[in-house]
């Protein structure tokens, strides 16, 4: 059996796809269920970094913030789509009518990779409360010792 890998992209210009890769899994809240279509996952920001020439990317998902970089893939990934050939007439060497074939529909040369663990975002009001609480606690402890 032979499966042809076809490519209709003319003059070496395949549509370029993108990858956002992160560690672990993104889970939606339980009340959303399966209705995840059109649901926002997060916000991708490109921040200019002072030190290195490479821009840093941050991806905010819920209360978690990821930071990562854009990576050029050493070996590009081709996006293939399984198809059942309809235009068998165009390929006289492969007369079988239902031969499956693969079509190259895109190429991926770079991805935005978040390879570190997520950092928790703590809203400012919470941290102020915590600070006050800690202050009280410290005072309490120090008075106790003295």
């Amino acid at each position: 059996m032979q499966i042809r890998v076809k490519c209709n992209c003319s003059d070496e210009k395949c549509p370029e796809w993108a990858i956002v890769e992160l560690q672990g899994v993104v889970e939606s809240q339980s009340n959303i269920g399966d209705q995840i279509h059109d649901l926002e996952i997060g916000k991708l920001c490109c921040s200019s970094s002072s030190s290195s020439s490479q821009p840093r990317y941050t991806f905010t998902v819920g209360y978690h913030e990821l930071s990562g970089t854009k990576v050029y893939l050493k070996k590009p990934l081709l996006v293939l789509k399984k198809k059942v050939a309809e235009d068998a007439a165009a390929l006289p060497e492969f007369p079988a009518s239902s031969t499956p074939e693969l079509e190259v529909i895109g190429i991926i040369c770079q991805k935005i990779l978040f390879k570190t663990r997520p950092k928790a975002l703590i809203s400012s009001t919470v941290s102020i409360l915590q600070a006050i609480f800690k202050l009280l606690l410290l005072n309490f402890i120090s008075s106790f010792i003295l």
Partner: protein
Amino acid sequence: MEVEDKELRGGAESVLNLAQGSSISIRYHSLFGDYNDLLLLEADEAFLPDILQNRVTIRGQTNEEAVLCTPSATYAMKSVGTSNSVFLIPPGKPILVSVNDTCSDNKANPSAVTEEVSSIIKVASTNMELVLVAPSLDKLKSLLHERPYKLNEDLEVESRGNVGLYRWHDLLEQIQASEQELKDGLKLFSAVEIDGFWRVIDGKTMDEILSMVLNNSILQGWPLNALKEDEVVSVLETDGYPQKIILHCLETFGIMVEGSDGKLWSLDEKKVCLHFALVALGGGMMKLDIFLQKWKHSVPSGMQADLKMLEGEVLYEKLGFETWIHAFRASALPSSPAMRFAALFRERSKWEWKDLEPYIRDLRVPGLSLEGLLIKYTRRTQPSADVEPIFSASVGDIPENYVHQWYTKDMFMKAYSRFIKPIPGEEDWPHEDHAPSGPPTCNVLPGRPRK
């Protein structure tokens, strides 16, 4: 097609070309799904031109592991999984530079105040990796030997039809090899195309035609190093041999030399002598001196039989004072290294290097040298420095068998399969202006300190 393109728009450009200081919302596509018909294939730069010019084919029967063939090379396809979430973002229309341009793709979310949106269509958990492999030519050999060509086969009962016969495109369907490798393989097994079918010629037929050529050379006074093709063909054709087979015989045993008057063939001494050696040996074992006598008698005059010609074709065995010889052809052994070594160690449990080398020198495994093969499949023992090393079968185990299952990837994945909540660490503690609290001061009490 048009519709599909529109639906699969995701705005990859805007993600990849995200300007510094700007942001984009990433969301699930309205058509987000499993998309099992989408595959990711990792492709070498060297291999891209072949893909783009439609010269790549995936070959394999349903019970075989698929391989991917370019015109000249064969690659195994390995599926590689990842525990990361790989979000695939389909290409989108070119993003306009103006900041307040709104992307029309996702109008469903009214709360979005962002100007640009990218959508993910699929979470890819695996991609295919390509590993260069040797073509599976053993199958080609067995297919070709299903029905070798015999003289006068047309006179046989004509009931078999085309069973066991293969055309070029039948072979392409069946054999997991690139076209170039298949061509080389057919040459290696000295197959010839007869009436559109690729055939190997039966040994007896070859023997018969070779003897006819040699006999006629004596009768007609042809020099063995310059046989005129026209003469040979015309004489043998009158004896009823098909032209194609005569030419194939000349090609198998000789080398073509362009002469001034037509094509000339020079018979190769080694090939002809080897043929007679195998005929003389037959199938069984023979005492060496008897064999030599028989062999030297049978080779055509003017050719010198030499035992060196039989490297990789015969094995010697010492039984008492006698040396015995029997045929053991490297070309008859399987071409995959594991099977080759298994066959070799079935024949003999211990091999010396000089005996072993002719049987393994044709092994070609991408990315592994002959040394590597020896380390993988054999155990080398050398009792003392002045003795030739001996190769015997290795235990043939995989190292994974000796590692505790706790160190396997499966276990690792299991251990971290549950959700781990990120917790605020030291850097998230609130900072304050107080002097840092030190250790309590030590009050020295009166009196002599205790020991």
